């Protein structure tokens, strides 16, 4: 309504202050690795390679692997 009457504050145009890389790095390394391990278990454990013996992980995630696009067997 009266929006155009209020002059914009130029400072707010500078969108978001970027996160400093040295602050982001430890998060990126630690959680990044954690998330990739999670993806490995969803997509490849007891398929292409195996950390645990047996087929339970493979069979439990069987349909998900096929439908998410991982080569299953």
């Amino acid at each position, binding site marked *: 309504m009266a*929006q*155009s009457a*209020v002059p*914009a*504050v130029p400072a*707010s*145009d*500078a*969108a*978001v*202050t*970027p*996160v400093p*890389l040295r*602050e*982001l790095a430890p*998060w*990126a390394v630690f*959680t*990044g690795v*954690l*998330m*990739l391990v*999670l*993806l490995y*278990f*969803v*997509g*490849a454990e007891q*398929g*292409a*390679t195996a950390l645990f013996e*047996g*087929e*339970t992980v493979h*069979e*439990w*995630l*069987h*349909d*998900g*692997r*096929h*439908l*998410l*696009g*991982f*080569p*299953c*067997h």
Partner: protein
Amino acid sequence: MNSPSVRALLVRGMLAGLAAGVLAFLVSYVLGEPRVEDAIALEEAAAHASGGGHHHEAAPVGRALQATAGLGTGVLLYGVALGGLTALALCFALGRVGRFGPRATAAFVAGGAFAAVTLVPFFKYPANPPAVGDPATAGRRTALYLLMIVLGLLLTAAAVLLGRRLAPRLGGWYASVAGGGFLVTAVAVAYAVLPGVDEVPAGFPATLIWQFRLSSLAIQATLWAGIGLLLGELAHRHLVPERAAGSPADRSGSSAVAA
């Protein structure tokens, strides 16, 4: 606008991934599971016809569980992991890719990730239903698939860097076109150089493969759209103070409409 906290965005990313995973699970159950069942029926008919044994019969997990709890576990964990990784990428991109607000930046990051880790690998090594694919080559196919994902990420990142480098000289539009052209060309070269995989058994219905692959693409599209939109919304609410959200002072990106 507040400055972003990595921890807060990471939590929001995993939550967005979980919610998007629920949506993707619904799509996979409704669209994907009937195709999986059809493919397994064909696989078992072929195994009976040849008189051989079949590895699904000795399986420790029954079909009913695979199609519900198993599928749900896979899709939800996949969603949480990708949501978390997208949040980390968003933390890096916020304030670094032009004057976009959190919602537009999240949509940009999720869209780029969808192209890099889903579309680029999909057109070379698409998803296959059960009964398609030789178990003996599973290791090689997994390696090629992962290689394609890594290539997709690297080439997409290179295209963005190239676009940014060219922007001062060419302007935003032509720099973006040049970046996109580089990506398409580089991916086409990778497709041409990498070995193909064609292990569809003779007589396997083409329609079923097409439907299976479309449903796989629908699942991924749902997941990435969900992550992009939900993470953007949550990041917007975290970063744009309530009182400023609808004010004219907040002109960053697409946030003209109050949340």
